């Protein structure tokens, strides 16, 4: 069983599922504890390392194969446009390992739903851990803004309750990383930023991106305030073109391993942990994606 080093050293461990069925080693993890002494129903090591591009990758992600036929409207394609193949399911299971492997260690045989739910979000989003008070977290947000490096996207969001300097796992404590990611669209020189945490689903994200980047064509051509109202209605009620199935554009994202992936394959929560930035790519460039 691969013992882990401490947080300081990069052990260069591979991102493989460990032979020990109780251990899942993350791609960057150099600090996975030896848990053979613990009775673990499902022992998950807590990844010390993040998912920066190095280390051995899992067996590929879902690579884009063919471009799907375009439609009349400018719309962005996501994974729903493409057939879910066995390839995607195997890749999602292998690409899911790093996310799960960063999950919270619970030293018990049973885990509460909360710990499990949190686990899907990645190690650093264990609720109420590290035990830091709310007002300090809030001031760190501002700290981060002052010290910001270019791609500093790991800002903590406001918390409702804090663990009181101690170890209570209060359910109301939702310390999530607020994730602003860059969005670029082919052909548009100036990019935008979206807060992924402000969207609960692919659908909502897609709509925001369409509003940001794509002109919506009103279904009729009225003038004046009626046009505005109608347009608003259109925006609110139409099904997201992003997830519909026809477009000149494809929505892709760069994951922590540096690969460009199609948006929509993995559950939303999992997507949040691995996305680094988004790109609205011309379909003509997205070679290799099978049509829906």
């Amino acid at each position: 069983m691969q013992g882990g080093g401490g947080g300081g050293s990069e052990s260069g461990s591979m991102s493989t599922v460990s032979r020990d069925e109780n251990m899942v080693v993350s791609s960057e993890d150099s600090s996975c504890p030896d848990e053979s002494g613990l009775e673990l129903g499902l022992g998950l090591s807590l990844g010390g390392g993040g998912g920066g591009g190095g280390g051995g990758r899992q067996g590929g992600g879902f690579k884009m194969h063919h471009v799907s036929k375009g439609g009349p409207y400018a719309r962005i394609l996501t994974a729903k446009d493409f057939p879910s193949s066995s390839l995607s399911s195997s890749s999602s299971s292998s690409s899911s390992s790093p996310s799960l492997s960063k999950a919270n260690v619970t030293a018990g045989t049973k885990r509460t739903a909360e710990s499990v739910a949190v686990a899907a979000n990645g190690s650093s989003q264990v609720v109420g851990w590290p035990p830091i008070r709310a007002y300090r977290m809030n001031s760190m947000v501002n700290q981060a803004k002052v010290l910001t490096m270019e791609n500093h996207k790991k800002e903590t969001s406001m918390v409702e309750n804090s663990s009181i300097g101690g170890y209570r796992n209060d359910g109301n404590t939702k310390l999530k990383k607020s994730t602003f990611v860059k969005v670029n669209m082919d052909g548009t020189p100036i990019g935008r930023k979206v807060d992924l945490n402000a969207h609960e689903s692919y659908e909502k994200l897609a709509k925001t991106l369409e509003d940001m980047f794509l002109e919506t064509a009103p279904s009729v051509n009225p003038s004046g305030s009626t046009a505005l109202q109608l347009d608003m209605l259109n925006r609110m009620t139409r099904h997201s073109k992003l997830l519909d199935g026809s477009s000149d554009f494809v929505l892709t994202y760069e994951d922590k391993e540096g690969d460009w992936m199609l948006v929509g394959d993995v559950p939303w929560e999992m997507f949040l942990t691995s996305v680094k930035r988004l790109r609205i790519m011309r379909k003509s460039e997205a070679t290799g994606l099978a049509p829906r």
Partner: protein
Amino acid sequence: MIEEEMNLTELDIQENGIDDKGGSWLSCFPESFTSLEVLNFANLSSDINFDALERLVGRCKSMRVLKLNRSVSLEQLQRLLVNAPQLAELGTGSFSEELTFRQYVELESALSNCQNMHTLYGLWDAKGIYLPALYPVCTHLTFLNLSYAALRSDELAKLLAHCPRLKRLWVLDTVEDKGLEAVGLNCPLLEELRVFPADPFDEEIIHGVTEAGFVAVSFGCPRLHYVLYFCRQMTNAAVATIVQNCPDFTHFRLCIMNPGQPDYITNEPMDEAFGAVVKTCTKLQRLSVSGRLTDLTFEYIGRYAKNLETLSVAFAGSSDWGMQCVMGGCSKLRKLEIRDCPFGNAALLSGLEKYESMRSLWMSACNVTMNGCRLLAREMPRLNVEVMKEDGSDDSQADKVYVYRSIAGPRRDAPPSVLTL
């Protein structure tokens, strides 16, 4: 409230994250009002009426404690200090704006007049280049809170060279081990150290402090008795050295931020580290453990930590036995908080007779079931046993349990998610 309280001496708005719209509350102090001794609005997030504040501070000649919020600039700070040289405790506002040379000199001069100042907070976003303005004040300082200023090690070192009398120091881990070495070198009277993580959620950055910094402090500061230390790596040997140097710990709160992380050199659990702490530090009242821990840690705690009153445990232990050791051994235990540990009903019930002498027990994400809690509630009617369940969890699991003694019976104000058994 302000308008009615003519003899108010303390106005302390703590940690509430209050977001009031505008600083009009300051204008509520009438001109005849001069009795304020303590004014703390450091946690208000909004701007304030500075003119009103300046006048207020100017006429309250007994003011000892003034803690400003971030909206107050350096230049404004200088204007306040000029009229309040008697201040003993100052929480600055933002410490980061651009100053002209003349403004800098004026600030330094105003600070140097504050000969009574022994406590300094705030320093939000402090820029290293302005820290020398603080030097004149530093000689008398006993408490310096730099935990909102992301200083580098060299900046801290230079500052600490002027702080020989420091007893309490709070910093961010941006100062790194080198900064802590400077603590050990310059502050022999230090009694309390808190090192907070600047970036607690960033798994990718290997920064911050390590065991080396803590050890360095322990060599230079034998009077250290209170520590809160957030780090990403630790060893058993380091902790053993630390407590050998500083046997008087009353509060030892070590947070290795990766849950369940072992000694990074030997790969062993951190049992011996906390064993050393409880064996050596006989005055220990508060202990927070972290890292990879087996039941052995809790055996040590139960056997040696006879003065322990507060214990915080997370992601630790191997079985019920661990908690049983604590419940059986720590006769003075008052508060026990546990999360994500493999302690179940047997552990919970082992404390049956103990909970009435304790203030509270918190257990979350452990292996306690509803039946266990019901049994506890039934056996000990003078305890309130409150269970909070998580959405989607097993019906039989007691996700969060809070137990405390009460003569008033079950509380009536519990939200619906809280079940009192």
